[in-house]
């Protein structure tokens, strides 16, 4: 089922939790709502669920406006961050609760519980109480309860945040596979960009109640629309350096106190066309910086952190600290001089005032 949010707003008194949000989720798509805590992403989810009524705007399921449809009539399943299992009921009763309310025939009920329990592999836990289960098991039970109604839309609120690190990585791939097998339109909320990038078909980055960008993980990473998205996506985070964009001899230059970079022609003219002033923020991801080159900027090693597969180097360039990811072997002492150079085809440029990317075609 398609989910379309149109001009959606939710205000709690003076606070605008969600502001004029537009989003179109395709049938069978796995979409992540990503943003820092308090950005309004859970509010969006609860509006789709029908728990909160939008202050303004419309919610469509396919062609139907569902603003006034009760949660129980929306054909949705939801897993809460706290799992919200009913502690006084056994696992079986928890899972079967939605069917009980629908007054499904007893034999059918048992058959469906058996099926869904098999799907999330909790067949042997059905007689236990939620208090006797581990976090991972509780999550599976919550998932089973959400799936037993055979919902058309599945909503997950921070599904992995209460699990330990190992289990989280396992559940990440499992959830992704399950979603594809079932083909249910799924929306999940997370503050963890890694979770969003790894699991979702498309990611909606939300900040301060506004949609920042809605595109594939690859697009988000390589072509962020604005400073917020660029800074929020990626770990270790992108480097931002304040520079000025200047033109000399028909070519564009990036200039700062510590360096001067001539831009490739196409890049330069694009940035030049889009910029509103010469004040520009240069963004470069740590893996797109080369270290120990013969030519480049002179920097001083601040600290070296080996990560196993890679090595993270922090280097002082003027007043700013530049993070560089390089592959082993790399050795340098603190205070040693190294030369850095940027891969020019990978750099991003943002307008300092509007915070928008200068390299994307205007829409």
């Amino acid at each position, binding site marked *: 089922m398609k989910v379309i949010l149109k001009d959606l707003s939710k205000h709690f008194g003076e606070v605008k939790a969600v502001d004029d949000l537009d989003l179109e989720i395709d049938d069978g798509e796995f979409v992540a709502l990503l943003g820092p805590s308090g950005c309004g992403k859970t509010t969006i989810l*609860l509006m789709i*669920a*029908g*728990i909160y009524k939008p202050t303004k705007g419309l919610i469509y399921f396919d062609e139907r406006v569902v603003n006034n449809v*009760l*949660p*129980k009539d*929306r054909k*949705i*399943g*939801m897993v*809460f*961050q*706290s799992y*919200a299992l*009913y*502690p*006084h009921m056994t696992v079986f009763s928890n899972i079967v*609760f*939605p069917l009980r*309310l*629908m007054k499904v025939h007893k034999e059918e009920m048992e058959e469906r519980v058996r099926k869904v329990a098999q799907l999330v592999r909790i067949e042997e836990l059905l007689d236990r109480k939620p208090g006797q289960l581990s976090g991972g098991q509780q999550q599976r039970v919550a998932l089973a*309860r959400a799936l037993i*109604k055979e919902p058309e839309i599945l909503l997950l609120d921070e599904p992995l945040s209460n699990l330990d690190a190992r289990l989280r990585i396992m559940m990440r791939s499992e959830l992704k596979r399950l979603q594809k097998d079932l083909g249910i339109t799924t929306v999940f909320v997370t503050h963890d960009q890694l979770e969003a990038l790894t699991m979702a078909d498309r990611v909606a980055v939300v900040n301060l109640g506004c949609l920042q960008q809605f595109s594939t993980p690859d697009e988000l990473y390589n072509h962020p629309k604005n400073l917020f998205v660029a800074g929020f996506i990626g770990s270790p985070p992108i480097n931002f350096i304040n520079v000025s964009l200047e033109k000399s001899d028909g070519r564009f230059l990036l200039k700062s106190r510590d360096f001067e970079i001539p831009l490739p022609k196409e890049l330069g003219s694009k940035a030049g066309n889009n910029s509103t002033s010469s004040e520009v923020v240069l963004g470069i991801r740590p893996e797109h910086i080369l270290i120990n080159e013969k030519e480049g900027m002179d920097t001083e090693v601040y600290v070296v952190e080996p990560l196993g597969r890679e090595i993270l180097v922090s280097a002082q360039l003027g007043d700013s600290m530049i993070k560089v990811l390089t592959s082993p072997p790399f050795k340098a002492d603190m205070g040693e001089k190294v030369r850095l150079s940027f891969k020019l085809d990978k750099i991003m440029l943002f307008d300092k005032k509007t915070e928008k990317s200068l390299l994307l075609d205007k829409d």
Partner: protein
Amino acid sequence: MKSLRKRNKVPRKSNPSSTVEKREVDFLKIGIYIFLILASMPIFLGFLWLFIGSVSKSLTYGIIPEGFSFKNWRFLWEKPYPSWPDIWLVSLNTLFLAFGVMIIVVAVSTMAGYVISRMKFPGRSFLLASTLILHAFPAITLLIGLYYVLRVLNLLDSVMGVILARAGLFIPFAIWIMKGFFDGISWDMEMSALIDGASRFQVFRKIMLPMVGPGIAGISIFAFITGWSEFIFVITFIRKPSAWTLTSYVNSVIANWRFVDFGLLAATSLFYVGPVLLFFIFTQKYLMQITVGGMKGGR
């Protein structure tokens, strides 16, 4: 437990200083026990006197028991005075009073506690504040007012009148306790049930009520005991013997115009306190939980 003990024994043998420590702890314990025993003596001796007095032939000066006899328990099968009602009718009245208070209190306070905890409505904070004030009101100051209200409602001289008055005064406290219990349940639980297909009322009945079970149990017990031990309203509002409760019965033994039959007083008192004592012993584990919920209510 067994493995714990074993583990404790090992260092004790190898480390002599720990035995010294152990002895100190024991002294402290003995001290505490002696204090507790002394402190509970007045109550214990009171009960002991009740028991001995109820089965003795006579009590000199109303205190010193002599001989052994069940004659004080005679009231169970015959009326001590012709004008008094049958003890079993009185017991039934008392049970009716206790259960009546309990049922009304539980029904009203669970629903009101839920609404106050979960819903926004105009006058909510005023309602909360006024329940607190009502709770602080000493019942005795309302005695005359209640008398008139009950007379207008034609509920004087009936157990029902006492039930309503007592329940009404108990409800504010119970609402606060129940609100605390409901506050302790996360919204997720409720939202989840709504999405699972429940109506708001089904959420209340199938999810919320079972989860506040300890609170309901605690309030039921308190309300029951309050009803069972109600004295002032019973004495004031009920005159007619057929509507007596055990409190009026015991009171009548004391207030008899000729002399006080201390043997009968002991026996009836014991008969009166017995059920509550048993009830208390079996339900005290629920009573322990209510303090937890009660603290939450203060938020």
